């Protein structure tokens, strides 16, 4: 059976995920239980949603380093607004709007002034982090019944008498499905792939490169803000100091998911598997108990290396065999 080269990284990601799951199930009782699997989605929901935004940005050949800060900013903004007596819906709506506008601003600078995305989002990362501390310098618990009762219990979907799907996991799955459709079945999605493949060609084909660029960072800002909302669902609090370095985890998930960091090649589904792989590594270390926490970054770093080398080999092979295994196929 012949498999197109663009699916090889995706298959490798699936293989890693399944092997990790198999190793976990063989080594520890209860690793494969329904509760652990459901929690895997719930615990990694905000990372997953942030990684969805990061996937769009990276597919277009850009990068967004402001993700973690925007999550922290959104979470403290919601906690603070709810604490001041706003309704949860108004607070969430306002926070989503703020995050989206933040993305618009960054996209505008990147697109109009042709500044490197890396630099603009780096400044954005500082800005959002500081703004979060300006809203409220300490973490703030949310005591509104909407968060404590409705989201925590009312909106979770019971599977059997002991396990139920938390609302955060539902949010992630919904966002993922929408992202899947946007990336692969819309004009906007195809424009992103085309830009990531070759920006000049995309412009020559008549694609609105500048507008798409602003839209991509807007979308990423929205995803980060949404991840911040889900974070408040998950922890029932807001904290301006949280999620430091989450953008790197999101990028790691995208890379492990088989997306080329230079853009143009990759799959939304790969990113979801990448997020699950990161979560499962953490689970394995937690189950093992006697492994020190510092092995997590070392293992993640190693996985990034393996996937980059794999992609390099594929790109090199595709060049050797001419256009048959074309990069943007």
């Amino acid at each position, binding site marked *: 059976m012949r498999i197109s080269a663009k699916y090889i990284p995706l298959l490798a990601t699936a293989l890693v995920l399944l092997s990790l799951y198999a190793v976990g199930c063989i080594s520890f009782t209860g690793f494969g239980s329904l509760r652990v699997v459901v929690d895997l989605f719930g615990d990694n929901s905000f990372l997953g949603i942030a990684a969805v935004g990061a996937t769009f940005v990276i597919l277009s050949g850009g*990068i967004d380093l402001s993700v973690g800060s925007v999550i922290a900013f959104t979470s403290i903004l919601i906690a603070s607004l709810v604490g001041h007596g706003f309704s949860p819906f108004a607070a969430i709506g306002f926070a989503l709007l703020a995050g989206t506008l933040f993305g618009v601003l960054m996209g505008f*600078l990147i697109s*109009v*002034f*042709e*500044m*490197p995305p*890396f*630099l*603009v989002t*780096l*400044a*954005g*990362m*500082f*800005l959002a*982090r*500081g*703004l979060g*501390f*300006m809203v409220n*310098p300490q973490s703030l618990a949310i005591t509104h019944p909407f968060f404590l009762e409705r989201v925590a219990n009312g909106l979770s979907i019971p599977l059997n008498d002991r396990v139920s799907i938390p609302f955060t996991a539902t949010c992630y799955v919904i966002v993922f499905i929408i992202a899947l459709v946007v990336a692969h079945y819309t004009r906007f999605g195809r424009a992103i792939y085309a830009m990531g493949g070759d920006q000049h060609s995309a412009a020559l084909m008549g694609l609105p490169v500048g507008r798409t660029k602003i839209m991509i960072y807007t979308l990423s800002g929205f995803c980060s803000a949404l991840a911040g909302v889900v974070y408040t669902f998950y922890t029932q609090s807001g904290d*301006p*100091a949280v999620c430091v370095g989450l953008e*790197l985890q999101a*990028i*790691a998930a995208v*890379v492990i998911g088989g997306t080329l*960091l*230079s853009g143009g090649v990759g799959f939304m589904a790969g990113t979801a598997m990448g997020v699950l792989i990161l979560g499962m590594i953490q689970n394995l270390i937690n189950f093992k108990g006697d492994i*020190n*926490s*510092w*092995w*997590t*970054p*070392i293992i*993640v*770093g*190693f996985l*990034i*290396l393996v996937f*980059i*080398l794999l992609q*390099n080999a594929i790109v090199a092979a595709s060049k050797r065999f001419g256009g048959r295994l074309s990069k943007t196929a």
Partner: protein
Amino acid sequence: MSSAVTTTGSSSSGRFQKKEIRWWSSLMWPVAGLALLLLFNLIFTQGFFHVEVRDGRLYGVLIDILNHGSKVMLLALGMTLVIATGGVDLSVGAIMAIAGAVAAQLINKPGVSFPTVIAVSLAVAVAAGSWNGSLVGLLKIQPIVATLILMVAGRGIAQLITDGQIITFTDARLTYIGNGSLGGLPFPVLLSLGMLGVAALLTRKTAIGLFVESVGDNQTASTYAGIRAGRVKFLVYAFSGLCAGLAGLVAASNIKCADSNHAGLFLELDAILAVVIGGTSLTGGRFYLAGAIVGALFIQALTTTMYMRNVSADVAPVPKALAILIVCVLQSPVARGKIAAVFRRRTVQ
């Protein structure tokens, strides 16, 4: 590729003149920014310019800026050359943590001489830089990704070395690196200036600087010209590792301990910003070591200004980010073109 051909084709004297002008115009912005910031402090912040001699060493806010800015200055030197090749090194903060961890572990071991401690920690830092260099130069992996690996894994490695502990030390020679002073000036400042001298000599008095610029400007063209681009890239990342190692020693020595989690955290961002403020383009091809030093001082002066004006350390990133965005927007070719167009229209009228 055509631009490279015309550059080599133009007369050498004309090119030299052009370079002189560029050097000034690019250093003008960061120096103007720094001057503006100092002027603001001269008027509004009391005691900012007060410098006094105590126990044979200089004290004052200005000296503090130099002293605290020295880590970013060191990092920015290595980062300048990396960025000049069109790359970026995200791992310098993690390398700082590793170098500090190695030094702290070794200094507490009986029978290990001080020079060995320094040599081994710097060698480990250079090895870490060489790892980045191999990935970028030999395996041709994009720099952001290649150095991301060590940025993620590096802190884990540093914790592995210190066994997850914060290792303290009291050795007078090691604490001198971050806290001592020589001829009135803090030792880290002299160390940074020394490294600036070394880097400037190596790049401006030998062909290395030209190689770095040509690789960053047009790798294909420079390969045809006989330059081994991979080797040049390997060298700049190794040098960046060395600078990060020195900064790591200063950081550990400052607080007399190796803190793997916090040593050099986010300093890679400060270093990159210092380089960009200094006029070096992120796309590579031209670099300004002195500009990077001014950029590092600008960032530190901004930070110190905010501390002195009682801005909380947590909120401090906001004005910092805004200042950096403004500087970068002004430096972007698009904005420069628009400003130039405004002036041209006026002269025509």
